């Protein structure tokens, strides 16, 4: 676009600027487009880089872990090489049962407390509620090992100061349940609150308008409506609990036999992985992969399963 110069007429600033913009834009265009393509490409590379560890871990897990999976692995307790059977290695049924009991008990008390506290957060706007919410959020971010110390202090060695006497029961599975349960509560609380707040106000008000008490409304209307979200929340919290090692590191003791009694020492899958991986014996280090594969498998099933289940439930309701 060229400016036509007419004798005696001053140049139009607008047209001049237009020409300037076009000139500079054209000049810088190639570089700008090149930089744009390069940077956007780099972002794509970042995405690939982010996925590499995932596939690397999954590959290692399957490659080194699958060979351990056998009926013996899942049903027998660990055995040790002896003169009679120098290749004995046994299985991890003690750890599986241990995890089941410890996490099961933890869930048993964490779920009701978490959901009810979540309901409180969803229904109350008081200062106490917002303080509680902040506390829960901070708790979810704290290192889980602190909860292990908590369980150690409260349950393993007990408390005998300031007139309060709590008998310590030594290493026990239930100490692990306590630690993991306290870990789960704020996670369930937060997610429950979100799920419950997601229930449209109109539904809640409809229940109240019919003359029902708040408690009944909550139980018969709000919670059933929020059920998909609540189930997802619980399953996700549980899948996280199953993999936690730090809180149970030195509170549940150890056990090489199947132990159902939570007052005794128990084994647990994440702990087994930790101890096997850091052990000086090659075969034990190898076995850690088998356990780890199973643990990851469980966690993934819980994770994906919870989302699929919630989606299915949502659809069934229409």
């Amino acid at each position, binding site marked *: 676009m060229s400016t036509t110069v007419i004798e005696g007429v001053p140049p139009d600033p607008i047209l001049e600027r237009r020409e300037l913009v076009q000139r500079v834009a054209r000049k810088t265009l190639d570089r*700008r487009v090149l930089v*744009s393509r390069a*940077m*956007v490409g780099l*972002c794509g590379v*970042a995405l690939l880089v*982010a*996925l590499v*560890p*995932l596939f690397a*871990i999954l590959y*290692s*897990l399957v490659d080194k872990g699958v060979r351990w999976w056998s009926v013996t692995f899942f049903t027998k307790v660990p055995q040790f090489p002896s003169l009679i059977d120098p290749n004995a290695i046994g299985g991890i049924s003690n750890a599986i049962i241990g995890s089941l009991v410890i996490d099961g008990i933890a869930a048993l008390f964490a779920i*009701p*407390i978490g959901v009810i*506290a979540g309901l*409180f957060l969803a229904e109350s706007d008081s200062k106490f509620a917002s303080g*509680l919410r902040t506390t829960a*959020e*901070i708790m979810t*971010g*704290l*290192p889980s*090992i602190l*909860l292990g*110390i*908590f369980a*150690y*202090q409260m349950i393993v060695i007990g408390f005998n100061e300031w007139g309060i006497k709590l008998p310590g029961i030594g290493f026990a599975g239930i100490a692990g349940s306590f630690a993991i349960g306290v870990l789960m*509560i*704020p*996670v369930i609380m*937060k*997610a429950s609150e979100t799920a419950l707040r997601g229930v449209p106000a109109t*539904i809640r008000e409809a229940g109240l308008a019919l*003359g*029902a*008490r*708040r408690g*009944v*409304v*909550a139980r*018969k*209307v709000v919670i059933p*409506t929020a059920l998909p979200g609540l189930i997802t*929340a619980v399953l996700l919290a549980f899948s*996280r609990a199953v*993999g936690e*090692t*730090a809180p149970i*590191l030195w509170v549940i003791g150890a056990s090489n036999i199947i132990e159902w009694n939570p007052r005794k020492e128990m084994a647990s899958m*994440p702990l087994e992985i*930790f101890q096997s991986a850091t052990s000086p014996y090659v075969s034990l280090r190898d076995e850690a*992969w088998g356990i*780890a594969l199973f*643990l*990851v498998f469980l*966690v*993934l099933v819980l994770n994906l399963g919870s989302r699929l289940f919630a989606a299915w439930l949502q659809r069934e*309701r229409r």
Partner: protein
Amino acid sequence: MSEVTASAALAMSDRPLAENRKRFSARGDSAHWGVLYGVSGLFALICAVFIISIVVSSIPAWRHSGLSLIYGRVWSQGSDSFGALPIIAGTLATTAIALFFAIPIGIGCALAIVHVIPGRLRIILSSLVELLAAVPSVVYGLWGLLVIAPWFEKTVEPDLADITGSRFPFQSPPEGVSLLLAGCVLFVMVLPMIVALSRDAIAIVPHDQFEGALSVGATKWQVLRKVVLPGARTGIVGAITLATARALGETVAVAMVIGLNPLFPPSLFSTASTLASTIALQFQDATPLQVAALGALAVILMALTAVVNWFGRRLVRGTAFRAGVV
């Protein structure tokens, strides 16, 4: 939805309305609130006892060493002298390494997911990255120790030493298990968090603004850099903050790959210690005084992560945050 309301209505309808209203305003409600407050109070009580028990458990150590617990440079169980400075240094160093990689790669990844990847792939890729978050830390430790450490020892660290001429901070003999390895394992662990939260922050920036920038002749990268990222700034900073808190407190994976060496790590290749890993690894056979000292480490760790977490939570909103990925 309607059938639930209907059944509630049916349950209520056998009582006369006036009587229902009376119940509504009277004790029926207070039972409900009683339970709610009771359970919430119980949780609050547990939290309070939790904090108190950790602080109290550390008192003998504070009496023994005073403030030198924090600035002392020697942590030796054998001689009962407790100076946590090298441990704090190790904690900060591993976190710094993790963030150094996780921030650019995480943000780039999030930008790619929202603005580069076509719609159908977006959900799949997002879920894959979130799957990384679901892997338990002990499995990361296992992988780091048995797969990455040997690789580091044989290939990566010698190569780095060659490239830099073994200058600081690459001068120690490669051992595999090291500060660098711990930092790298941490990087992989906090990456999904940064990606998920940044992705939410970036996705919230209205498409209108994206188009507005495009309409005056900006290239895609110019729009991302000058409009989208600044618009997502709060959420991204929040994501980084929360990731920092996570990295500071990560215990098991770090414990498995850092070697537990409570001296000042002279280089990236040497072994070191972090607050969390020291607590984890030294608890087993600790005397009561040593347990108290570890409790003191716990207090420092708790204070550090609580403060960082609190800042981060104030900045973050979004679906990943609410769904409990974080």
